[in-house]
């Protein structure tokens, strides 16, 4: 039984039992190269749910504050390993109610970065198929077909994944994926080394260039599963006016810094912001850098243990020696 069948079965059961009002999974988008979040209310509709390496959306986004509709809905949802960390982060701070959730963990062996594939072609992609594990076959609008190895076109976050299996789930869709030995080796931060090694001036120039393209659509904030202020976001507040609504490199950068610091200790570098950005700003770079520092300071990986509290809501007299 494939993972997809498991998901459908769990969804149908939970809906039939009345355990959930709706179930969130993934389904095909406007063509077979796109996957979108699916909201299933009727057990008869579970056949639209799919599981492929294109299911990149972090569905935890749809249970955060003001997203459930109706507001007190009981919700079932699928989480990958990375998604489950953001769910755990929300649970740690009691930002969602465990009792209203039914969570299906989906063991994951890596999500394909559709944008990497898009950049290989001038034409649009109309079909992405996975004939077997590890193979990705892409077809364009004009009928050009090319094959890629899945490992070559994975999301950057997936290449360093330490949590392929959900850390919090009521049911698991099929056998678990092999876990890396987390005791033996810490997180791999090699992807941000290039940025870290730039000089201050170079960093400034790089940030300015990259963030100048931001259009302030706030997709990064809204799609972020752990960014929960919603209509009270300080970046948008006009009373008082803290962040200028002007669109310019300086203002955009401040807005992104605020987003970053406000999710410190909660951000798991899931990369949802990165993938949602319509102008493809590599947002997750600085978030990764921040998480590296947090790991350095506290040995803390956000959203990994249900009984932990985020590090910025705690202090520890025995081990905190900052500023001494």
């Amino acid at each position, binding site marked *: 039984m494939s993972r997809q069948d498991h998901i459908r079965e769990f969804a149908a059961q939970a809906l039939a039992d009345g355990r959930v009002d709706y179930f969130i999974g993934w389904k095909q988008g406007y063509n077979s190269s796109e996957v979108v979040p699916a909201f299933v209310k009727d057990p008869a509709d579970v056949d639209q749910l799919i599981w492929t390496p294109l299911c990149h959306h972090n569905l935890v986004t749809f249970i955060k504050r003001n997203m459930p509709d109706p507001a007190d809905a009981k919700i079932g949802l699928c989480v990958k390993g990375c998604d489950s960390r953001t769910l755990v982060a929300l649970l740690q*701070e009691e930002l969602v109610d465990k009792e209203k959730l039914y969570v299906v963990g989906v063991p994951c062996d890596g999500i394909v970065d559709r944008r990497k594939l898009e950049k290989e072609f001038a034409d649009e992609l109309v079909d992405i198929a996975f004939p077997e594990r590890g193979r990705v076959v892409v077809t364009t609008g004009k009928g050009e077909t090319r094959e890629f190895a899945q490992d070559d076109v994975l999301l950057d976050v997936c290449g360093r994944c330490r949590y392929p299996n959900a850390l919090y789930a009521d049911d698991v869709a099929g056998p678990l994926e092999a876990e890396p030995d987390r005791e033996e080796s810490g997180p791999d931060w090699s992807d941000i080394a290039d940025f870290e090694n730039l000089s201050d001036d170079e960093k400034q120039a790089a940030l300015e260039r990259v963030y100048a393209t931001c259009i302030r659509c706030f997709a990064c904030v809204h799609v972020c599963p752990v960014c929960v202020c919603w209509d009270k976001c*300080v970046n948008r507040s006009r009373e008082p006016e803290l962040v200028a609504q002007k669109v310019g490199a*300086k203002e955009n950068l401040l807005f992104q810094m605020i987003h970053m610091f406000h999710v410190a200790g909660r951000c798991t570098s899931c990369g949802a912001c990165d993938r949602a950005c319509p102008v493809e700003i590599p947002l997750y770079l600085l978030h990764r850098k921040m998480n590296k520092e947090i790991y350095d300071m506290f040995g803390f990986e956000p959203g990994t243990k249900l009984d932990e509290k985020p590090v910025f809501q705690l202090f520890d007299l025995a081990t905190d020696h900052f500023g001494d």
Partner: protein
Amino acid sequence: MADQTTTQANDAAVVAGDTAAAGTIDAASGAGAAVAADGAAGDRPVKIVGIVCNWCSYAGADTAGTGRFKQPPNLRLIRVPCTGRVDPLFALKAFEKGADGVLISGCHPGDCHYSEGNYYARRKFELLERMIHHLGIPKERFRWTWVSASEGQRWQQVVTEFVAGVEKLGPREGRAL
């Protein structure tokens, strides 16, 4: 918790808004902004924003003043109830609005008027300090420390050192943030 975050953010705005309204940043050098626009800014005095807690460092600065300890005039203070109330974005906002340096200071660990505000605060400041030069702002432009109400001399020393460090780098020009 969500509501708490919200309130915090809004309060943050009030304080940083005050920063601008009180003219704390630009006023330090008279017509700082205008000078910068002329491109002949190399000579203007650096503008430094100090964010200090009401109970220790603000009083410490007062002690330094009462004791007539000579200090560089580049620093403008913003008083907050406690360092625990300082959001890292206060510092970033000050940089965005044109500050050349930001100094944060509060009660020594163990001396917090509210018992534990600075225990939370130092974790945040440490993260900000580690991140700041990755945001394109040289490390020397940001400092956080502890100064108690009686440490007028220490205040003088901290300010003098910090201002000298920032002066060495000069005013920030062509900055991203």
